[in-house]
């Protein structure tokens, strides 16, 4: 049995099953079991790919350059693993947050379709299926964004939809141009055919176009304005899922396309990535400082941290790629749990506006401890998980003599800490709560349990950084090994002759 398709089949079948069923407790069990199963499969895939195997599934047994291939290497497996983990956490948190009868009947199926799109983006081995994966993900995300929206939220959803529609059209053009240029859309085939074309201006143009397309998805500096207003309109568990996964799909694809697919001597594009990342880090964190509600601050932070990851990709060494992957692993878990903490704080205070909350520390000290751990981790304090990725990125920056970018990264970290302190001061430590805390609400304790599990995991990543770094190093080596990738894809079983 070839396992590469299981991350697609599980959410697809679950979504259909959930659509058949009536809203109720049973559906929640199905969704949770499916997420658990997916996590198990993803961990199994990770163990196999970490052992050095690249799982390739030629769909319909058509050989690689003609048929569709699904490819699962260490980075894909890591990302699938994280996606199922965050989906599980967000499902469980959602179950704790809202009673069954208040749940929108389409929320659970749409979350499964969202996962399907995300996983397809991670598994696919050709540019057009990447487009299809993105579209499945985006349409599900549009629907979830507007599913439970009030009239204010709808106004924020429109820019998200509009900008991503333009991005999709550009992506389609990029895929068409890539086909015209290389005569193929298969990643491995493009990698082989473009290996000697590095300095060709057509390849450079295509690279810039892809940078813009995936820059929109990832939320790079001039292209991110759709994000900080639309994410805060989501319900908290969905906001955690979006914040954790969606922009990281963009970062994953940037790593995949610039590492595996396009030739490695596109210095101009790499330089562009690094510079844009520098701007993203600093400007987005300034945006975070300007916001007055928790979800707004956290949404701007996503962008700032995207800057760190893309900066590492722009440095373009195996070590920098490993740092980016480590940072992705850390960031997805920490960011999702911060959004969930924001949800509990809003539940207790009745609002996530900083001016209206306060004094949570006195009544819910454990929530405060969890927030502190994750906030300091986000800012990058040494024993916590955020430190290691940043440290390696800065070391690579110093080695390459990019002092300005390193300085920008340090300033962004400091400002991150400041804006986290803003939440801490207004919500946990001081504040002027007019309304009494809703401590009698039975829901916030199980919600906190989910957050505690995620926080323990991120502490584990910080303390066991060496092991995680090993995985990241292997994933980075595989992403940058174009010949190995192509060999794995072309040697997969299929009919027809191999080139």
């Amino acid at each position: 049995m070839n396992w590469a398709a299981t991350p697609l089949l599980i959410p697809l079948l679950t979504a259909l099953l959930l659509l058949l069923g009536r809203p109720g407790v049973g559906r929640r069990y199905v969704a949770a079991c499916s997420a658990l199963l997916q996590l198990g499969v993803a961990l199994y895939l990770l163990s196999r790919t970490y052992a050095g195997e690249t799982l390739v599934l030629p769909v319909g047994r058509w050989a690689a350059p003609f048929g569709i291939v699904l490819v699962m290497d260490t980075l894909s497996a890591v990302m699938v693993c994280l996606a199922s983990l965050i989906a599980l956490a967000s499902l469980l948190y959602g179950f704790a947050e809202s009673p069954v009868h208040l749940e929108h009947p389409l929320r659970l199926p749409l979350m499964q379709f969202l996962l399907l799109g995300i996983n397809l983006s991670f598994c696919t081995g050709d540019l057009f299926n990447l487009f299809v994966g993105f579209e499945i993900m985006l349409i599900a995300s549009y629907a979830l964004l507007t599913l439970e929206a009030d009239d204010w939220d709808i106004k924020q959803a429109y820019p998200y939809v509009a900008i991503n529609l333009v991005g999709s059209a550009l992506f389609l053009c990029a895929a068409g141009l890539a086909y015209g240029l290389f005569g193929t859309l298969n990643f491995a085939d493009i990698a082989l055919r473009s290996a000697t074309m590095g300095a060709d201006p057509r390849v450079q143009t295509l690279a810039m176009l892809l940078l813009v397309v995936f820059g929109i998805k990832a939320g790079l500096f001039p292209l991110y304005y759709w994000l900080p207003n639309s994410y805060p309109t989501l319900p908290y568990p969905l906001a955690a899922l979006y914040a954790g996964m969606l922009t990281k799909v963009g970062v994953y694809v940037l790593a995949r396309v610039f590492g595996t697919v396009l030739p490695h001597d596109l210095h101009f594009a790499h330089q562009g990535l690094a510079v844009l990342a520098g701007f993203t880090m600093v400007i987005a964190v300034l945006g975070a400082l300007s916001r007055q509600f928790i979800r707004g601050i956290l949404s701007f932070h996503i962008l700032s941290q995207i800057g760190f990851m893309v900066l590492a990709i722009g440095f373009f060494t195996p070590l920098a790629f490993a740092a980016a992957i480590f940072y992705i692993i850390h960031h997805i878990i920490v960011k999702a749990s911060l959004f969930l903490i924001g949800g509990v704080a809003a539940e207790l205070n009745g609002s996530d506006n900083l001016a209206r909350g306060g004094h949570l520390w006195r009544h819910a000290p454990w929530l405060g401890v969890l927030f502190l751990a994750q906030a300091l981790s986000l800012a990058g304090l040494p024993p916590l998980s955020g430190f290691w990725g940043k440290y390696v990125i800065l070391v690579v920056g110093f080695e390459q003599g990019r002092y300005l970018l390193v300085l920008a990264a340090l300033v962004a970290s400091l400002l991150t800490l400041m804006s986290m302190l803003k939440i801490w001061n207004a919500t946990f430590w001081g504040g002027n709560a007019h309304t009494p805390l809703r401590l009698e609400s039975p829901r916030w304790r199980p919600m906190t349990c989910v957050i505690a599990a995620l926080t323990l995991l991120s502490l584990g990543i910080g303390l066991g950084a060496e092991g995680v770094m090993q995985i990241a190093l292997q994933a980075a080596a595989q992403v940058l090994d174009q010949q190995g990738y192509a060999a794995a894809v072309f040697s997969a079983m299929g009919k027809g002759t191999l080139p």
Partner: protein
Amino acid sequence: MQLETAILVGVLFACGTYLILQRSFVQILFGFVILSNAANLLVLSMAGLPDGKTPPIVGEPAAPMVDPLPQALILTAIVIGFGVIAYLVLLLYRLFLDQRTTNAAELYAETEADSHE
């Protein structure tokens, strides 16, 4: 043929972009329709002329054949485009119902993100 197609794609992109930047919802909607069709046409034109290309069939082709792959691609892209446009129509209609306006500039005139609780 290549040049004419290229010009057509360029004109469609220009029209689509111009319409998307307008204020009326209907114009914006048509802008997106035109933009997605322009992208489809671009993919189709990437098939190029069939001269000197061998189709992926067994045996000798009886006549010049077109590259089937871009056609398969735009078939998928058209279906996806339909779905997205249908969603956009509903979104804009919902916006009109909620805000009683079809003017985008009016809609976002006094937006302040921080005013939301």
